[in-house]
């Protein structure tokens, strides 16, 4: 039972290698990732609606809880919030509002929520961005050193400190710093973003803002770097028994180069994803830190929205915070692709 013999010199030589089709797959990769982010955003928007509309608990009653309000007043409030419309009508209103970035009027500030968020948005980005960069740099650097000297005093001390910081509630650390620097030492300002009489000139002004940032940034970095340290340490330890490190050593590479040129680039891959995943924690920290240090940002807005309760404002900050995080994770996917030549499929 012999079939046609393949032509002489047929490609029996090698099993086929995966063909690198980088350009087409790059487009596809970005497309899938963008699509995924879009789906997440849609889910946030849906959640933003249902959490506020469908869950048990009458928002108007919640608002009226601490204030004396007559039945007529509550009815009027319902009317003004469009709560009398059928659900789908509310939903259509809501969708329209979201796409025009209109989250209604804040009860507390008596101002458009979008305007408020617009005013405070960059302050939060400045604060959390600075904290994130410092925390990532510090965490990754200490983490890889700790993993490489696994079991040494350096490792034990750093992991220990990281574990303690990991166990600290952010707001409490903020309170302690406030107590030490506000109550006793007066090295840094403890409230707001500007001095009461801000100095003239760009540089002087920047220095003023920077001095206001010191305490909140320290708080956020301290709590978050610990997570990054543990993540980096763990992923480098995973790599440490990899065969290609033996190859590198056999080639005669110095130990520090084996680490920096071979182990760390591989360990960074899982780290990138996890680091960006933890950005959510950083944002959550911003809420309490901004509250304690009276930093005029989205976190402080959120706090005020809770104490109101100011549901339109809360809805607005929730959607914006979620959007920030979705964008950050999209960024993480793109960075990951740059670092890992193997990314095949989404």
């Amino acid at each position, binding site marked *: 039972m012999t079939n046609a013999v393949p032509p002489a010199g047929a490609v029996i030589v090698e099993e086929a290698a995966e063909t690198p089709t980088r350009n087409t797959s790059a487009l596809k990769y970005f497309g899938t990732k963008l699509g995924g982010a879009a789906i997440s955003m849609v889910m946030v928007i849906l959640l933003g609606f249902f959490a506020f509309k469908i869950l048990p608990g009458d928002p108007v009653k919640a608002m009226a809880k601490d204030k004396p309000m007559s039945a007529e007043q509550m009815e009027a409030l319902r009317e003004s919030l469009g709560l009398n419309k059928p659900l789908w009508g509310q939903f259509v209103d809501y969708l329209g509002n979201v796409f025009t970035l209109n989250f209604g009027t804040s009860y507390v500030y008596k101002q458009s929520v979008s305007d408020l968020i617009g005013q405070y948005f960059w302050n939060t980005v400045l604060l959390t961005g600075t904290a994130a960069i410092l925390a990532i740099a510090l965490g990754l650097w200490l983490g890889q050193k700790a993993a490489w000297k696994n079991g040494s005093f350096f490792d034990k001390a750093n992991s220990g400190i990281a574990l303690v910081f990991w*166990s*600290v*509630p952010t707001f409490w650390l903020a309170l302690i710093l406030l107590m030490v620097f506000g109550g006793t030492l007066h090295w840094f300002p403890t409230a707001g973003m500007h001095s009461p009489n801000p100095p003239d000139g760009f540089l002087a002004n920047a220095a003023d803002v920077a001095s206001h940032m010191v305490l909140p940034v320290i708080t956020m970095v301290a709590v978050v770097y610990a997570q990054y340290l*543990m993540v980096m340490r763990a992923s480098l330890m995973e790599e440490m028994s990899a065969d290609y490190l033996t190859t590198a050593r056999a080639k005669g590479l110095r130990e520090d180069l084996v680490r920096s040129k071979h182990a760390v680039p591989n360990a960074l891959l899982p780290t990138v994803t996890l680091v960006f995943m933890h950005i*959510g924690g950083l944002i959550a920290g911003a*809420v*309490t830190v901004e509250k304690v240090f009276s930093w005029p940002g989205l976190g402080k807005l959120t706090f005020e929205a809770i*104490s109101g309760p100011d549901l339109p404002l809360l*809805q607005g900050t929730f959607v914006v915070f979620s959007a920030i995080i979705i964008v950050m994770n999209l960024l993480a996917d793109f960075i990951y692709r740059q670092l890992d030549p193997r990314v095949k499929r989404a």
Partner: protein
Amino acid sequence: MSISNAPTTATPAGTASARQVVWQRRRAAFAGFCKEFSHHKAGMVGLIFLAVVIVAAALAPFIAPSRMLDVTQLLDSPRFAPPSWEHPLGTDHQGRELWVRMLWGAQVSLIVGFAATIMSMVIGTIMGIAAGHFTGWTGGLVMRIIDFFLVLPSLILAIVLSSVLSRGVLTIVIAIGLTSWAGTARVVRSQTLSVESRDYVERSRVLGAGHWHIIVKHLLPAVMPLVLANTTLTVGSAIISESTLSFLGLGDTTLQSWGTILKNAMDVSAATSGYWWYVLVPGIAIVLVVLAFTLVGRAVEQIVNPTLRSR
């Protein structure tokens, strides 16, 4: 390592004896686990500390009767008294002993921590196994949901939930439980995927096994140790979340919890007014308890999965 020198003894009895051998081995494995854990210094320190705290919290009504918290009976006691022999941990703005509040607060903080964790573990395990086991669009959809919750700022979502729902301990538990399961689901999913790719699952399928059999017989036992380790780690972060939500004024103000105490301290500007004990005591308690849970969790994790050192 061949069977001839293995310590299993020949037992001519029935199936029961094979089961007995299995049970014996499970008991031995558990004893081995305990023994190994007892050699883990940090884990033991954490465990003993937690045991003390839990016993103290359970005995709170006997050590410090609830009338000690009744403000109307405390009109004579000093406000903001610093720690002294008379007031071991100082008093608060209404003259209540801080140590009494801490003791009662431990109850709420621990109960919320455990309850939220159990909820989060159940959701996380189910979602993780579903995402890893089912292929096609069911798995894809579950995966998408996990990814979404993984990325979402859980505290912000918890804030939204607890602002919309009526205030109370249950709300806090639901808010934390509903928003903190994604991390567990992720770990469970990757473990499920790795078990799923093992040949014994394929063999089971060839023997005619359905989803239920594979999940109960092969997947669940394989992910349980990881879930267990994750549980202790999650209790810690749930306690932090509880204190944060209470601090933001979303807790039950009628109950004592460590977060509520810190909120009171913040409300009376304790930090800037020199009432250091009011801030330090509850904070240090939170840090120590969370640290203890973390140490225990990491010890368990190291024992059940030596390659997976930490997250």
